[in-house]
């Protein structure tokens, strides 16, 4: 009878462990299983950054770089996907986040047969264009705003205002450059030199990315990369985009480039499933209470704490 007990327990345990494995391995197999869609739609809407998405109660504003990268990876690992259609409507974002997304797209372009097409919406400037430049083909509306190729660091000096309202700031720092970009004093020449070096380096990386993605010479690009913006028509003339049209024109181009016969089947790879959205809600700690949320430093305007941006 002892053996009976062991056998019954073993059978139930085995079945349960296998089911648990099916659940835990679900996301992996899901990403690898060939889906019915042949075009992966990835929306790049809003400011591109690497900020936390904030769980189920997040407002969802902006383009989270990690989510974009995950979507690109999922599309690449899906055997049915022949093309990625990026729908970009973004004024830019941080240099690192834009670069991370660009690199993932270039990896997909180089390591697979998947074609990448970018469709520009209202705005695809700076970081938005950084990402678009990784595409095999860029489609813009004639009046889309694009370009703004450059890097900017902005700081304010509010010391005279602080004096007027009688607020004094004391800083204790480990080194002379620790409070670089402090808004409570004038920027020192040494700091300016460091910041210029960072901007120049980041700018060069931006240019190199466009040169590699667009396969255009640096000499041709440099005059266009002084931070100016272009309409879609102007960008087409300057070879910054390949054709003019709307989203559906971009979809048609996608089908042609990826050799998709008939109507392309599009799946939004950035869209979370209902259960996927609920998953993190219970698997991670609950979000802070509204009062905490309002007072939380992390919810303040975000750009004051990002030193290097390639937007505006």
């Amino acid at each position, binding site marked *: *009878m002892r053996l009976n007990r062991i056998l019954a327990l073993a059978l*139930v345990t085995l*079945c349960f462990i296998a*089911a648990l494995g099916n659940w835990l391995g*679900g996301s992996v197999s899901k990403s690898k299983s060939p889906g019915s869609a042949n075009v992966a739609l990835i929306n790049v809407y809003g400011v591109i950054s690497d900020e936390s998405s904030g769980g189920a109660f997040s407002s969802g504003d902006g383009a989270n770089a990690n989510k974009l990268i995950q979507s690109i990876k999922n599309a690449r690992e899906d055997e049915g996907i022949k093309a990625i259609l990026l729908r970009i409507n973004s004024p830019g974002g941080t240099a690192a986040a834009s670069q991370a997304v660009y690199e993932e797209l270039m990896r997909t372009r180089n390591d697979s047969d998947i074609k990448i097409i970018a469709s520009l919406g209202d705005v695809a400037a700076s970081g938005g264009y950084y990402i678009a430049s990784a595409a095999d083909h860029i489609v813009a509306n004639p009046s889309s705003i694009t370009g703004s190729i450059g890097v900017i660091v902005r700081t304010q000096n509010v010391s005279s205002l602080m004096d007027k309202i009688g607020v004094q700031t004391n800083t204790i720092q480990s080194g002379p450059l620790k409070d670089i970009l402090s808004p409570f004093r004038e920027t020192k020449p040494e700091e300016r030199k460091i910041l210029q070096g960072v901007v120049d380096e980041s700018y060069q990386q931006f240019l190199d990315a466009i040169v590699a993605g667009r396969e255009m010479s640096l000499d041709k690009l440099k005059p266009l990369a002084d931070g100016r913006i272009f309409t879609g028509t102007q960008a087409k003339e300057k070879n910054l985009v390949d054709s003019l049209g709307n989203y559906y024109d971009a979809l048609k181009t996608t089908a042609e480039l990826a050799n998709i016969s008939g109507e392309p089947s599009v799946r939004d790879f950035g869209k979370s499933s209902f*259960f996927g959205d609920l998953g993190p809600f*219970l698997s991670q700690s609950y979000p802070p209470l509204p009062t905490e949320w309002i007072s939380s430093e992390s919810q303040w305007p975000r750009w004051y704490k990002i030193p290097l941006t390639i937007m505006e």
Partner: protein
Amino acid sequence: MLDALFTTFFGPQPSRSHSSITVLIGFVLLSILALNAAGKTGAGIAGVIIFFLLFLVAGLLGWLWVSAALHFIAQLFGGQGSAQASLQAVMQGLWPLMISGPAIAASRWPSLLGQFLGLLLGFVVLIGTVITLTRALGQVHQLHWQKALLSVVLTLVSSLLAWLGLILWPLMVLFGL
């Protein structure tokens, strides 16, 4: 309880009257099916809980319907078991569905052996469920296995027809009125 579970799985059926075994098998089945479904949809822990609750409601409804239909058809064939015994027999007869966990896991192995094993276990689940249901029904209603099998088949057919009717009736009302 483990002895009773073993007897329910593999042996002759003196444990049919154990309602605790019925509840245990029901709980394990729901858990395994919910985990499988959550794995297929890539859901998180919330998904598992939602699937479990969803399957609990759906399972209860299905269990009652199938038991009632089986009991009714078995009675038509001269069955002598009680309604409670039919309920227990159906739940205990569904235990091979537990093997769907290993079957799905095996089919995900990236090899031909895995595919074969998955297919084989899937076949075991399908055939095993029909066999155990037939055996359970035959025992509680003291029916010959052929009559018990016919009861199971007729129940499945009537369930499918009821499901079809459930779809067609609203359509008929929608378009006809």
